[in-house]
Every structure is written in C-alpha cells, then in structure tokens.
C-alpha cells in the first residue's frame, strides 16, 4: 500500500508546527524520518496514527483520499504505530497485552486461555521474538523486551504500514538485531515501514529512502547511497539567518553556581560546570539526555545521589538566589485556576508581609509593575485566572514570578516551547537584559538555533553525561548536534 501526505499543516492554538509537509512512501520500503527535537516528527507520527487530525492538507492511501478519524480508524486501515513511550500494562501477562480486547472465547463467554497463549506465541514467533514467554507478567520483562512485545502487538492482523518512533532507543545487541531482521522481513512482505530515529548509523544501514524534517518542513529527501551521516547532521541543524537574538558581548564575572561531579542514579552522571555572573549558558541535549532532570536536581527539586553544588530543597535554592522556570508550565509552573496576581506572587509571599498578613497593596503594586515590565497581555490581567492567558503570556507570568524573587541565577527550561515568535523575541531580549544586569542564566533548549543564537557558551548533554562545552561564537549547529548524537570527531 502506498501512503502519501500532501501539504499537511498542523497548528496548536496560534502556533503552526507543520508548514505543509509532502511525503510519499511505497509498499516494501523502509522510509526513515530524521530531524532534531521539535522539528515536527512527533506531530507527523500522531497524524499517521490517527491520534491527531491535521489542520489542513491530505492523506492518500493507494491514491485515495482518506480522513483518519481516530487511532482505531488508522488501525483498521492497516496503519500501526509503535510510540516511543510504551503502552504495556505491567500487571498483565504478555498474552493479555498482546490480545487485549480480542481474546478467543469458549462457548459461554469465558476466555479460552490455552488458545490465547497459543496465539500470543504465534504472534511473537512470527515477529522473530521467540525468546519471550507469553505467560509471564509484562512488567517482569526488561524495557527492551517490553518494546518488542509492543512491536509484536502492532503486527497482529493485517499490517500495511508500520510506524516506529525511536524503536531502537532502548534496544541493544541481539535485541536490536532481531528488530532489524523483522523490519527487513516486513519489507519483503510489502509493508511500508516508517522509521523515525536519531540514530543515523541505523538509518544509513536500514533505510531505502531518508527524509529530513526541520522546523515543520521536509527539507531534503535522499537515499543512504547518496548521502553521509555528516551531511544529514548538517541538514538537520540547518541555518537560519534571522536577527531575533540580541548580540552578546559581556565579559563573564564571578562564579555564581559551581556544580561538580553531580549524579542522580538512572538519570545523569558526573556533571560538572560553572555559571558566571553576566553569562548566558545554553544547555542542549536530545530528549532523554537528562538535561531537565539535572536542572531540577541543581534546584533541589530531586535529591542528587552524588556530587557537589546542588541545593537540598527548592527553598534553599531560592534563598541562595536560584530560580527555575520549568519546562512544563501547566504541570509545574502555574496554578491555572488561580489569578495572575496569586501566581506571580507565589514565590515571594513570605517576604511581602505586614505583620501576619500579606501586604495586599504592595503585592498588587509589585505584580502590576512586573506585568508592565514584561508586557504581559492583556495589561489589566492581575485578577484574571492565569489559565485564560495565551501560552506566551503564561510563560511570561512564570518568569515574572521568579523575577519578583530577585534571582542571581536563572535556570530556564525550554522557555520558548509553544511560544509565538513575537513573545520569543521578548523573552530573548529580557534574558539578555537580565544577564547584562549581572544574572547568570542557564538556558535549556532543544532548539539549536536558539541555543546557539541566544547564548555565550553551550553545554551539550548526551545519555546523561556532559558531552561538550563549546563557545557559541566559534561553534556551529552541526558541531553541537554532532556532540549530542555522539558523532563528534
């Protein structure tokens, strides 16, 4: 079955993340999709899986226009998707996970267990994962094996298109070999395999054709024989010449934060770096590299297992002048049901008191000043629920909360994700101003252009370790990405 996307656009609110994607896949082809974080790969996958309805554009199957209404719809048409996040239910057996919703029944309606296990066995064998026992609890399996169960599950019934999102992220050695063997068998059977991965070596080995996606556009379509890993990295990083980042020229002053040998089991290891006053340091890493976890640990939100320099609790970090603007403002940055006033004043309630009571007039004045200074829109929003503001203005409200605390070190985790361009520019200007006033800023970002354009120095993390410390002036997006992927010379 051939699959075709034409002019696919996708917007979330005001932000368009896919700007007209064209893509063609033929039966019996392994089509690799590569791109940096935030390029639009996940959105593309969700559209193919029927989990997201495209804002505009069309999807054609064998030339016929199709509207995927739900994941169920996509499944029924033979399009199967295996996401990076596993959906295995650990408390159920492998058989139950594989046959969920489609158990063989005896007369009388009871589940026919011997038959169920036999079918599960068959499914695993045909996928080439014969080493997995269908009777064990799925939760007892290693993550790699769970991933294989997930893939086997997707292969039940008639499969025409198999979409794999970073399938190799948790696989290694012989498990990885089994996966590759399976993909090759599927290709021979005429299945279209859409293979989304960061790992370029695999892509070069497996793919028949490769598309590079960047900033919501397919910027190149090529084949392994006609390209190289280095060229792909160059394409993924790309170049944009927009004057959205203020020029950085401030000489760094005294050290504000010194982290050495910081580790947290299972998340990151042996991280050492310094932040100096007046300096903006970028922190780049692919999803899963441990950068947000490391920042949370420095701030005292999670305990470290080893190392020095991290604070023991957020209260201690705040007292020392740290501020952490977290990645997910809805989950950990804001209280959506409360007013803008309450939200912005949250971290400074104790400092602004008159006797036992909050100094209401003073609080209002300080918050209003901050609303004006950051030009949070609408301007008279202090008594509005913060959830009624747009994404960019919500982000500014989180920033305002921390600026009121008068920080000396500001950690920003993906401050511009889901934020419109105008607000982005505002945020870059403000961060630059703050650094000029002597703040040390750590800017965590998966946006290569941002991490290079808005900073003085870039730290790169890969698989929980610090993989590079580069001067923004002299490095390139290619070099940063190469460190993040592990291809650096």
């Amino acid at each position, binding site marked *: 079955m051939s699959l075709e996307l034409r002019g696919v656009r996708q917007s979330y609110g005001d932000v368009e993340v896919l700007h007209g994607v064209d893509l063609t896949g033929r039966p019996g082809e392994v089509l690799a999709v590569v791109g940096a974080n935030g390029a639009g790969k996940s959105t593309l996958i969700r559209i193919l899986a029927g989990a997201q309805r495209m804002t505009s554009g069309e999807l054609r199957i064998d030339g016929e226009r199709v509207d995927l209404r739900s994941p169920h719809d996509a499944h029924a048409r033979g399009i199967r998707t295996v996401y990076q996040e596993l959906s295995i239910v650990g408390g159920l057996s492998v058989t139950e996970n594989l046959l969920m919703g489609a158990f063989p029944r005896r007369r009388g309606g009871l589940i026919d267990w011997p038959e169920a296990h036999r079918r599960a066995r068959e499914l695993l064998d045909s996928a080439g994962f014969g080493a997995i026992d269908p009777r064990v609890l799925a939760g007892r399996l290693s993550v790699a094996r769970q991933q294989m169960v997930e893939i086997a599950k997707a292969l039940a019934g008639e499969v025409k298109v198999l979409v794999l999102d970073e399938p190799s992220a948790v696989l290694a050695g012989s498990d990885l070999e089994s996966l590759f063997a399976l993909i090759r068998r599927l290709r021979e059977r005429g299945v279209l395999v859409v293979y989304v991965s960061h790992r370029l070596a695999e892509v070069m080995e497996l793919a028949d054709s490769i598309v590079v996606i960047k900033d919501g556009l397919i910027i190149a379509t090529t084949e392994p024989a006609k390209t190289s890993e280095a060229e792909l990295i160059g394409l993924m990083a790309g170049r944009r010449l927009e004057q959205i980042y203020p020029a950085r020229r401030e000489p760094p002053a005294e050290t504000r934060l010194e982290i050495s040998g910081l580790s947290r089991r299972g998340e990151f290891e042996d991280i050492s770096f310094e932040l100096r006053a007046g300096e903006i340091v970028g922190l780049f890493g692919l999803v899963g590299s441990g950068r947000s976890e490391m920042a949370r640990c420095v*701030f005292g*939100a999670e305990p470290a297992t080893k190392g020095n320099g991290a604070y023991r*609790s*957020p*209260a201690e*970090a*705040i*007292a020392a002048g740290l501020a*952490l603007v*977290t990645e997910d403002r809805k*989950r*950990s*940055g*804001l*209280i*959506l*049901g*409360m*007013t803008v*006033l*309450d939200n912005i004043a*949250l*971290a400074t*309630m*104790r400092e602004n*008191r008159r006797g*036992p*009571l*909050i100094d*209401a007039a003073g609080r209002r004045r300080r918050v209003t000043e901050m609303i004006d200074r950051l030009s949070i829109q609408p301007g008279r929003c202090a*008594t*509005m*629920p913060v*959830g*009624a503001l747009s994404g960019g203005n919500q982000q500014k409200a989180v920033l305002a*909360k921390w600026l009121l605390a008068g920080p000396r070190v500001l950690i920003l985790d993906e401050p511009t994700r889901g934020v419109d361009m105008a607000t982005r520019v505002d945020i870059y200007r403000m961060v630059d101003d703050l650094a000029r006033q002597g703040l040390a800023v750590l800017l965590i970002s998966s946006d290569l252009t941002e991490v290079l354009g808005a900073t003085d120095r870039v730290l790169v993390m890969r698989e929980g370790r610090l993989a590079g410390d580069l001067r923004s002036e002299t490095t390139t997006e290619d070099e940063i990405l190469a460190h993040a992927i592990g291809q650096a010379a």
Partner: protein
Amino acid sequence: MTGHIARIRTTRLIVGGRDITVTAAFVSLIVLLVAVAALTSDTFLTQTNLTNLLKQMVTTGLLAFGMLVVILTGGIDLSVGSMVAFSGILTAGLVTGLPIPVAMIIGVLSGVGFGLINGVLVSRFGLAAFVVTLASLTTIRGLAFVYSEVPIAPEDPAFFTLGSAMAGPIPVSTLIMLAVFAAGGVFLTRTPAGRSIVAIGGNAETVRLAGINVPRHVTLAYTISGACAGLAGVILASRVGIAQPSVGVAFELDAIAACVIGGASLAGGRGSTRATFGGVLVLVLINNLLNLYGVQSFWQQVLKGLIIIAVILVQRTNRVRG
C-alpha cells in the same frame, strides 16, 4: 463566547477570595427557603425557633469551615464526627477534676492532636486522605467509647454556659462560629499560609518548586479541621448538657455537603468561606423546615439528599450559563 466569560467570572468568584459576588441564584435560594419557611410555618419566626436555628448551625458551621480548609488542599477529613464525640466526652469527663475552661481547652486540643496525626499521615507518609481519615473515624469513635461507654452529664451548671449563653438575641456559640468563619476568611485570602493551602490544591508541584513547604501546610490544614471539630464537640456537649460517645455520626457528611453546595471542588484549589457559609445556611434551613413540617426523620434523610443534589445541579447550571 458567553461560556468563556462565564468561566472567567465564576473562577474569579472562587479563587481570589473575592467571593462577594456569590451567584445571585445561591443567595435567592437562601432567601426563598427563609420566605417559604416564614409563610408556611407559624413557628419558624418565633424567638425559640430562631435561637434554636442559630445554635444548630454552630456544629455544622465549625465542621464545614475545617472541612473546607482540608478540601482546598485536595484532601478530605472523614473523622470530624468522631472527633466531636471524643472532645465532648473527654471535656465532660474532665470537669469533675479540673476547672471548666481548662477541661474545655483540653477538649479542643484533643481535636488538634487528632488532626495533627491525620495531617502527618497524609502529608509525610503520602497516604490517601480518604483512607487515613476513614481509619481515624473508627479509631477515634472507638476511643470515645473506651473513655466512657455511657453518656456523661456534668452537674456544674457552668458547664452549660458556653453552649447556652446569649449575647442579646444571638447565642454566644453562634458568635464564636461566625468569628471562626471571619478569621478563616482572612486566613485563607490574606496570609501566606492560607494562600499556600489554596495553591497546593491547585497544583502542589508548582507550590513545592516555589520553595513552599507543602507537607507542613497540608498538616496545618488537617490540624485546623481537627481544632474546629474539637471546638464543635465541646460546644455541642455544653449546649445539650450531656456528652455522648455516640454523638456526631455522619456529621462529616453535612460538612462536606456544605462545602460542595458552596461550590468547593473536591479536587482542591477552589472554594470560599463565604459560599461555604451559605452552604451551611442552606443545610440548616432545610433541616429546620423539615422538622417544622413534622416530616418523619427517615424521610428527612431522603429529602435532604435529594435537595443537596438539586442545589448542586442548580449551582452547576448557573455556573455554565453565567
């Protein structure tokens, strides 16, 4: 668009502590209840009935305020009815050996202690509030019976003062309850601790990352609820003149109902003292009316349940329409 505006308006009514604008429908419901009562019953407007009404709302009122504080954190306190029984019987038992005010303070402190234990179990050990307070419901009830299987009726008439004294036309106990609500309103809207409690119910992780000690504030909320229950128990024993270990069964339900009628969200983060007080009025008026009509007590329970659902539905529709 209308829906959008409506949402903003209700949220504002609830979050900022600026609950002066309690929905018109809610206020008219209370007025309606009073009007119906006054028109259909000769006894409603009599001095005796009104005084009774004012005294009856003290227990529900105190428990509802404590419950509101806990509900705001996203928790629940099912043990308040048992605390009422325990503090009452403890106080009545102690008055033979101790000065009455001291006995009463100890009664209130018993509630503080139980609340503190509830709070620590919920916040430090991360146990589910429902389970913890369900366990303390039965434990504390048991302790009340262990302390005295039979009711205790102190003879010293000074024991009755707290529950029966009048300040002009208004019972002193009612004034105490009103004072708790007034102070509670200021606490929840104007102090860092109160705002933190509301914020925790909204998003505990955000609050934690703002450097606020979440477990301590959650513990404080349960302690406040315990203190209110302890005080309610002492006042109730003093009013009735006799402390019974079996008193207060299902009182927690009225307290929760008052909060919910007042628009509090059981998920936490949303609720106001004024609206909860309105909820208390609605409940007490309904009880009083059904009594005046001579409705049989089992039917009273049925009717009360149905009326609560009706009131909440009206509140809901009202909120959606704005």
